[in-house]
């Protein structure tokens, strides 16, 4: 049982690390020791950590390059916002409504993941990347056409493909409220997200992804990544397991999107464009493909970094890019790898037999 114990130790270290970081930051925030801008970053950081961990399931564990992760985030964000807003009268409790919004976001993102996944997972490599990229754009444009409102009769949805319709076409009765106004996006959203909710989301994401990776499902997914033909020869249903990885990743991105959407007063779909997908991919790649705690650290550090660099004003993104390049050079440096392995051995935590996770 030695192998099992070793991976369990890494997992628990990840959980404890995240929890300690949360407790420290939360206490600082409560005590008013955080600057306003940093304090406002806490929920988005949690969302992007969750995004990075879930993308790692596809890119690192399943080995398929997906460039449309932000698309699933936006599906989750807008469906989550609709759920969170329209249920305001039925469910007064904010935490309960937030939880429901997250589940709704995850559900719709999972459906989107399934619809995209079934045809797309027949493709490999670059082709898969291109199709997922296109999907991200399509989702963005579709949401731009969406006009949604609610009144006592329930939800009213108009699909504004012609670009001629407006909120009045919803025919809301007196007291009804528009939630999403086409290209303007969602406006007047009640801010429901909180840092503790973000922490819970990160923990749930981590538990789902790590437990899946350590189970027979995760082994099958990694087996397909390592050698598809051999995986088939030992009876692994390739399509099924690729789809499980893709859909669960989309669902987790949807939940993160819902929390993200409910953290702001307004939300436009262009926030979930191609750049966002690439940004999340950068977190995953720099954190290490298939390395879950690496994604947590990668997302946190790289999300805060541009904020920290604000004082450099115009040179901000330049320095950000230089830091990225340095990290890449360092992590590929043989001497640094050697040093890191030596340190790991000294600490008695060699991670030799972990299946690269």
């Amino acid at each position: 049982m030695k192998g099992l114990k070793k991976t369990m130790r890494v997992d628990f270290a990840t959980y404890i690390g995240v929890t300690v970081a949360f407790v420290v930051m939360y206490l600082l925030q409560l005590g008013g020791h955080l600057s306003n801008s940093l304090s406002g970053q806490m929920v988005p950081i949690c969302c992007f950590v969750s995004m990075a961990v879930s993308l790692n399931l596809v890119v690192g564990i399943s080995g398929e390059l997906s460039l449309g992760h932000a698309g699933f985030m936006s599906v989750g964000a807008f469906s989550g916002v609709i759920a969170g807003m329209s249920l305001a009268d039925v469910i007064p409790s904010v935490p309960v409504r937030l939880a429901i919004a997250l589940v709704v976001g995850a559900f719709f993102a999972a459906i989107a993941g399934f619809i995209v996944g079934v045809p797309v997972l027949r493709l490999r490599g670059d082709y898969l990347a291109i199709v997922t990229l296109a999907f991200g754009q399509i989702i963005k444009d579709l949401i731009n056409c969406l006009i949604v409102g609610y009144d006592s009769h329930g939800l009213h949805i108009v699909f504004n493909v012609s670009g001629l319709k407006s909120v009045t076409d919803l025919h809301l009765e007196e007291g009804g409220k528009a939630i999403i106004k086409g290209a303007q996006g969602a406006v007047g959203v009640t801010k429901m997200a909180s840092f503790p909710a973000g922490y819970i989301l990160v923990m749930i994401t981590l538990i789902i992804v790590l437990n899946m990776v350590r189970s027979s499902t995760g082994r099958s997914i990694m087996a397909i990544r390592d050698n598809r033909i051999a995986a088939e020869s030992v009876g692994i249903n390739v399509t099924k397991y690729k789809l499980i990885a893709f859909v669960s990743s989309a669902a987790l991105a949807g939940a993160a999107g819902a929390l993200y959407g409910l953290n702001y007063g307004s939300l436009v779909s262009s926030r979930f464009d191609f750049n966002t997908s690439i940004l999340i991919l950068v977190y995953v790649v720099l954190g290490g493909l298939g390395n879950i705690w690496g994604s947590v650290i990668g997302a946190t550090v790289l999300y805060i970094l541009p904020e920290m660099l604000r004082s450099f004003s115009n040179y901000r993104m330049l320095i950000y890019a230089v830091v990225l390049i340095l990290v890449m050079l360092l992590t590929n440096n043989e001497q640094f790898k050697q040093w890191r392995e030596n340190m790991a051995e000294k600490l008695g935590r060699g991670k030799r037999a972990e299946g690269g996770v």
Partner: protein
Amino acid sequence: MSQQKTRMVPLPSEGIIPERDAGSMPVLECRHLGIEFGGLKAVDDFNLTVGKTEIAGLIGPNGAGKTTIFNLLTKVYQPTHGTILFDGKETSGMNTVQVNRAGIARTFQNIRLFSTLSVEDNVKIGLQGSMSYSALTGILRLPGYWKNEKRMHERALELLSIFDMQDLANHIAGSLPYGAQRRLEIVRALATSPKLLLLDEPAAGMNPSETAELMSNIRKIRDTFQIAVLLIEHDMKLVMGICEGIAVLNYGRLIAKGTPEEIQKNPVVIEAYLGKQKGADA
């Protein structure tokens, strides 16, 4: 082990199998099997019967179509002609996964391990067909997860001990020496509890002492699991030493079938391997 001479008996379907298997249904029967790649007949009119506990060999010069036959049996390619009866059932319409579930497991000529995973995980992946639990059980770590993982762990070590590899369980598969990787492939195939084990050049790259060990292990596997083994091999010492029946393939066609003694004396086989000898009288 006392090396008893195996007697082969002919079957009505033109196959030959060891006498001890004559009472039970043959595990594999290929009838007029063939595949064409754009007009090129890679395998043509291939007939073979393998007994329930037979160790059979498939030999022939390079490019004769031996691996292609393995790919046909495991449905990596769909045959264009003929039928495959496995355990009495036709396998037409099945895919690779279904054929494996039905009981055909294989190894590969160019090793195909899950190279970034541990040795134990490689074996566990083979075991998953029989000891599976749902994805949700795994995520929520329900009792089924712990129970099956424990069983898989124990069974994996048990299977690895066939080749005395249980101490390597935590090593990364890709970091193993060549010979050990070949052995691990066999263990992984065995983990799927097959009725027929296909070994594609199991002794390639092994030294003579490793090969000798492999021979006794293949016999041990057949005896403990009571399964059939069909192997492709160029090492004639191994083939003649353990195979009860041998089929010889050349240019995609079967040119001879029989016991090792018969094959060694067969002039057609000698010609295929050594070329025509001028004025020689075989």
